[in-house]
């Protein structure tokens, strides 16, 4: 019997028909680890699922892949849902994956961690990018739903704490597919038209799905790019969203955001009172210092009894004049006594006095005093002065030697 050969295509199509007819293979869930994960420019995802012993080729087409809430990565444990069929061109069977779920954690959780890591690496959470908040905001732009507790809480707390701040609501949807684009759009709009000097964006608590808009990359980037400081206020205390990481300040709840945004009017009033007291005390002190300076000066004697002061000075002047007079007189006396003494000495030394005691002054013809016998020769004319006149003499003889 001669067997007729089939073409490769016919064989592959036959096998494909067999597999496609299998009920189990038409909708299977399979567990494994992703490897060789590739995203093609076409938008289709190709990967291999494997466990310790086997591997399975998988493809996920663009339409299904676009619904993924996380980015599949090699090494990730997942559950893949789809149908098994043949790819006739390669003669290979593969899983046509329609859904991919991370194992262990929910897909949103994985998506959250992935976006968090990505934005963190890009520096969107960097503390140095955080802007300081105005102390006394003039206008706060509130980006949230116009319905619901969040907006009411924010307006109530702002009104109670600091009614001077104007509140401008930019109503947006805060959940559902449109929410991220609306929130991001409102953030940009508020910046473009400088609607306020502070933005609060958020919503009340809910499930992770309800809060999901605040884990959206578009919202995160709009917050990051905002030139107006942003306070995020999403859900309740334990819920932390990507928006919280990017925001300049994270509030635990919408009410808390309002508390953080503005000062408390009663604290400011207390501060004003304290200022008034400090001003008064400082002024009082300043005045009493001036006062005591004045009374100190006023109590000086010159101010108390100016005549006595002048009298005292006059007395001083008198005694000074007295002293001067005394000194002058004493000086004159001293000089007089000195003069008498000197006159007496002079008198004692006077040659007249000596002559009167019998001594004589001998001078030669030239009028020079003759002090030695050697000064004259026999026959010289000399003059001898006595106390009451003069003798003209001639030297008769010389006799050397002391006469006494």
């Amino acid at each position, binding site marked *: 019997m001669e067997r007729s050969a089939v073409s490769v295509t016919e064989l592959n199509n036959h096998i494909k028909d067999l597999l496609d007819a299998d009920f189990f293979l038409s909708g299977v869930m399979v567990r494994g680890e992703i490897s060789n994960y590739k995203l093609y420019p076409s938008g289709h995802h190709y990967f291999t699922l494997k466990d310790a012993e086997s591997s399975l080729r998988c493809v996920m087409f663009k339409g299904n892949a676009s619904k993924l809430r996380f980015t599949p990565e090699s090494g990730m444990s997942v559950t893949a849902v789809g149908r098994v069929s043949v790819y006739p061109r390669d003669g290979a069977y593969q899983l046509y994956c329609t859904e991919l779920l991370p194992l262990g954690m929910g897909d949103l959780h994985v998506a959250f961690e992935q976006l968090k890591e990505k934005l963190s690496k890009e520096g969107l959470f960097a503390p140095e990018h955080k802007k300081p908040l105005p*102390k*006394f905001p003039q206008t706060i*732009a509130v980006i949230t739903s*116009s*319905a619901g507790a969040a*907006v*009411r809480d924010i*307006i109530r707390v*702002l*009104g109670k704490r*600091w*009614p*001077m*701040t*104007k*509140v*401008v*609501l*930019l*109503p947006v949807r805060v959940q559902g597919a449109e929410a991220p684009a609306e929130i991001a759009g409102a953030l940009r*709009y508020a910046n473009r*038209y400088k*609607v306020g000097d502070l933005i609060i964006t958020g919503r009340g608590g809910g499930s992770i799905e309800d809060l999901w808009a605040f884990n959206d990359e578009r919202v995160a980037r709009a917050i990051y790019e905002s030139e107006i400081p942003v306070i995020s206020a999403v859900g309740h205390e334990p819920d932390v969203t990507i928006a919280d990481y990017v925001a300049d300040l994270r509030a635990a709840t919408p009410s808390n955001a309002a508390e953080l945004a503005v000062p408390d*009017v009663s604290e*400011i*009033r207390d*501060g*004003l009172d304290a*200022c*008034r007291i*400090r*001003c008064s005390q*400082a*002024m009082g*002190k*300043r*005045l009493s*210092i*001036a006062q005591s300076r004045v009374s100190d000066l006023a109590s000086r004697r010159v101010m108390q009894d100016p005549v006595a002061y002048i009298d005292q000075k006059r007395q001083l002047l008198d005694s000074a004049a007295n002293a001067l007079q005394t000194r002058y007189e004493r000086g004159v006396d001293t000089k007089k006594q000195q003069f008498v003494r000197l006159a007496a000495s002079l008198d004692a030394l006077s040659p007249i006095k000596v002559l009167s005691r019998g001594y004589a002054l001998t001078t030669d013809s030239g009028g020079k005093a003759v002090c030695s016998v050697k000064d004259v020769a026999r026959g010289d004319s000399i003059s001898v002065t006595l106390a009451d006149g003069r003798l003209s003499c001639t030297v008769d003889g010389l006799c050397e030697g002391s006469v006494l």
Partner: protein
Amino acid sequence: MANKKLSFEQSLERLSEIVKLLERGEAPLNESLKLFDEGTALIAACQQMLDDAEQKVIKLRKGDGGEPEELPFEEE
């Protein structure tokens, strides 16, 4: 004297400056008295601002040209 144009924040800043100057006590007496008067006027102005404050809440709508239009806010 207090300048009416000062914002609340500017008033507070000036006020704390005045308190510091007064407490330092170095200014001449007439200067100190001027500072005291200015401080007292600023405190009164700030308190007046707080007394007069009434919260304004509006809702913004994107106008036809894209510019914001203010609408009264009513709770929904």
